[in-house]
């Protein structure tokens, strides 16, 4: 039944919230310490249990899946609630933080991919497996190789 999925999700979220609050109290900070992350771990564990006992049915999936699909619209609503007028007054911080972050992460990708040595590229894998078939313009619009 669909409600079982929604209930499972609610129970995990509530458990996470309680545990997060308790952690906050124990650490002496007025905050919910990692509650959402903990709730996610409970849900992953719950799903794992259901799969192992073969109890995971379409109803449960639907109950959780609906809310998962609802996440971007909810984030849009959340964004529409914020005090953006006050945020704009802080100037170009957003752009600077974002650009610096992306550059740092690109550099880290380059570093890790060089450190870990050479691996087969996607083309080589496909050539080896003989799956390199003529494709009509890989739809990316950026003019990468047309095979």
């Amino acid at each position: 039944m669909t409600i079982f999925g929604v209930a499972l999700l609610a129970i995990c979220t509530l458990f996470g919230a309680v545990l997060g609050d308790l952690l906050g109290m124990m650490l002496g900070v007025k905050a919910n310490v990692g509650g959402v992350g903990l709730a996610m771990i409970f849900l992953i564990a719950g799903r794992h249990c259901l799969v192992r006992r073969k109890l995971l049915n379409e109803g449960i999936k639907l109950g959780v899946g609906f809310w998962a699909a609802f996440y971007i619209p909810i984030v849009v609503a959340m964004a529409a609630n914020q005090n953006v007028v006050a945020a704009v007054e802080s100037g170009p911080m957003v752009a600077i933080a974002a650009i610096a972050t992306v550059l740092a992460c690109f550099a880290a990708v380059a570093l890790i991919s060089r450190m870990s040595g050479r691996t087969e590229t996607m083309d080589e894998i496909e050539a080896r497996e003989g799956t390199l078939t003529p494709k009509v313009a890989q739809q990316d619009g950026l003019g990468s190789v047309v095979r």
Partner: protein
Amino acid sequence: MIAEAISHALRVNALLTAFAFVGLVMWLSAALSKYLTMGRVHGSAIAIMIGLALAFWGGIVTGGKSGLSDIPMLSGIGLMGGAMLRDFAIVATAFEVDVEKAKKAGLIGAVALVLGTILPFIVGALAAAAYGYTDAVSMTTIGAGAVTYIVGPVTGAAIGADSAVIALSIATGVFKAVLVMIGTPFVAGMIGLNNPRTAMVFGGLMGTVSGVSAGLAATDRRLVPYGALTATFHTGFGCLVAPSIFYLIVRLIVGN
């Protein structure tokens, strides 16, 4: 008379009004993504930017602090985007995580994931401090926003950040996601993004599933599943460590 009836119906059914309104925004964003950016900028990022822009407009019009939801007819947006439903929906996304698939990403995926959370956090927190947000709560929230636009507000709400700071953290995350979407094809050659392993490292480091999928799709569509595999864990991991370990470390360093 008709106008009054409509406004009454919209006000008493505030949450339904919010669903209809956000649905309209999402539809518009999907259209803009498809026809204006040729699918290069993901519709979700455009929708969040529209949300922030509307919050700005709402703030100007009403002089309030809660963006669009200060307009009586749109007060349902406040409930829809409030902490309760937000946490509920975000937790739900973890249901798609498959433990078996997680093992495939392996050690290098895990290293990328950890680095991809720490690095943006430090950069974001430093940028916040440089612009005068020197308290631990604001630095943590904006640093978390640089991880992803979800981790930012979740962290901010958990540790009690100001709404303006939360708005900054969302904006930072969205801006980052858009940069990843647009910039990836241009740097792909330089950073060796032509094999599944680098794609997994890339997904773990850059985070934001929307940014990674769109960026990789524009580079080489075959790499998308590898990048998404590690990026999926990014938000969950961030929500776990940002309002806990990271916040406590920042508090230790800068005091309250």
